[in-house]
């Protein structure tokens, strides 16, 4: 039995937890600022880009992508967390279907990620980027797609993690490579040919690229590398496949 009320309350719970875990909240706000204003500002001084976007402007789409990546993955870790601390059972014995719980987790993870990504967009004018209302709305749409895709990926992986220790492994072997290979910090064309295929099977690459289409000024060396239609198509397909996979795995694995 699918229950909207249950979805609603699962989402509300995740938001409450997010704002109550001060540390998590602060880290998620400060981490992108460190990347932008320390790493980004530093490299801007030594990288000559000529025309078009500055380096610090160039990495904003990537940092938004990173924020969504970390937030989405961390949200799905709450499934592991809930299991470890027993709360998952409270949800599993309720007279609602497993799909309800998956949808609740999916929407809460997505909404939290988009919320954090949106806050970051307000930095764009400080960096000298011109973001109008249409750009803003386009970004919300694209961020939602990416957040949905990655939260679904996380939900698909989470049931296989038997403990919170598994989270560290995931962080180091999946999340960080995903970030570095996504074109967030340097163009994908700069990645060694031998491992470039990893960038092309990385959903984050398409998300970051789509953000570049919206946020970066035209021209120069640092531009989007793929057509936006391709970006959106890949992410949409990935999101759909992962959502179904997550629902199936969740149903099977408890």
């Amino acid at each position: 039995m699918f229950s909207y009320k249950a979805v609603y309350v699962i989402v509300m719970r995740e938001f409450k937890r997010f704002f109550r875990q001060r540390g998590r909240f602060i880290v998620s706000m400060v981490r992108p600022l460190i990347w932008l204003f320390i790493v980004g500002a530093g490299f801007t001084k030594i990288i000559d880009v000529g025309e078009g976007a500055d380096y610090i402007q160039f990495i904003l789409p990537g940092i938004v992508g990173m924020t969504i990546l970390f937030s989405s993955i961390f949200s799905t870790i709450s499934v592991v967390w809930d299991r470890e601390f027993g709360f998952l059972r409270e949800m599993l014995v309720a007279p609602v279907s497993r799909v309800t719980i998956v949808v609740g987790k999916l929407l809460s993870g997505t909404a939290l990620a988009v919320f954090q990504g949106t806050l970051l967009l307000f930095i764009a004018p400080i960096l000298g980027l011109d973001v109008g209302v249409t750009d803003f709305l386009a970004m919300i749409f694209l961020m939602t797609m990416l957040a949905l895709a990655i939260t679904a990926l996380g939900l698909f992986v989470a049931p296989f993690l038997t403990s919170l220790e598994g989270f560290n492994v995931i962080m180091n072997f999946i999340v960080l490579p995903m970030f570095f290979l996504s074109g967030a910090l340097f163009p994908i064309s700069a990645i060694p040919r031998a491992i470039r295929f990893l960038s092309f099977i990385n959903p984050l690459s398409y998300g970051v690229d789509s953000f570049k289409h919206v946020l970066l000024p035209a021209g120069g060396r640092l531009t989007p590398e793929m057509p936006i239609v391709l970006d959106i198509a890949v992410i949409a397909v990935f999101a759909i496949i992962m959502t179904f996979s997550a629902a199936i795995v969740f149903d099977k694995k408890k």
Partner: protein
Amino acid sequence: MSENNSIIKVRGLVKKYNGVEAVRGVSFDVYSGEIFGFLGPNGAGKTTTINILCTLLGYDSGSVAVNGFDCRKSSHEVRSSIGLVFQEITLDNQLTAYENLKFHSYMYNMERKTTKIRIEELLEVVGLTARRNDLVREFSGGMKRRLEVARGLLHRPKVLFLDEPTLGLDPQTRKHVWSFIEKTRKKFGNTVFMTTHYMEEADVCGRVAIIDNGKIIACDSPEELKKSMKGETIYLKTADNERAARELKEKFKLEAKVIDGGLSFNVAGGEKFIPRLFEGMGVEINSISLKRPSLEDVFIHLTGREIREETASPRSRTRGPGGPRGMGRGRG
């Protein structure tokens, strides 16, 4: 009470884990409105059975019905008619007591108006009204348990399942939880099904099924079970247990069991028997004690061993034995 009165009906239940039978052909009835206890050592199949009744686990053969609904075919209806308190704490530490209850009410699709009234009512019953807006992580083990019982009753279930409800609580808190389970049962008229390996806890039940190695070996009220023991239990420590056992058999026609480096046997009119024992025995007696039969004795009598702290399932944490050594529930 008659069959039509049963709210839980289990017939020939078998559950295997990797080919090994954990529950081996169990049948029993739980009657509407009673407190029914499942007493047995860890690993006897108690939690497995409760998980099957709650539709959290499938089974291999037999039939299981709760509130008239088949646990396999109508799991949704079963879930709507039951409330659960698990062995481990399943509250959200980062929500308040009130928010935990509210979460539950949404999951069980309760009406908003009744929810508010019932939450207030239950918080009052469990004595947590003053702490309603405090985060659960600040609660003690006993308070968490009480809140969980309140949550289990929030949607007015027909049956409240309690899996080792006082595991790891200190004796005083334990008594408090019992009185309060009884109080809520009287108030709401729900049936209670609980598992335990504490004898005192089984004494709270109207009827008790003793389960060992996946089978029910006795099922009756605690009083009847004790009466079946006939007489008192005498526990004896001697210089030579083997010889003492032989003498008991020859001189008094009593079968003694070796337990904990001593001998234990039952005899009618135990107080009067002790002087005769001292006269008759050729072995030096180091200590002697007499006990009215407890459920523990019933268990020993039926299985030939004590309910002991055995290795628990890997999920559950340190199991505090009864008494002041009992551990906190941890994971605060």
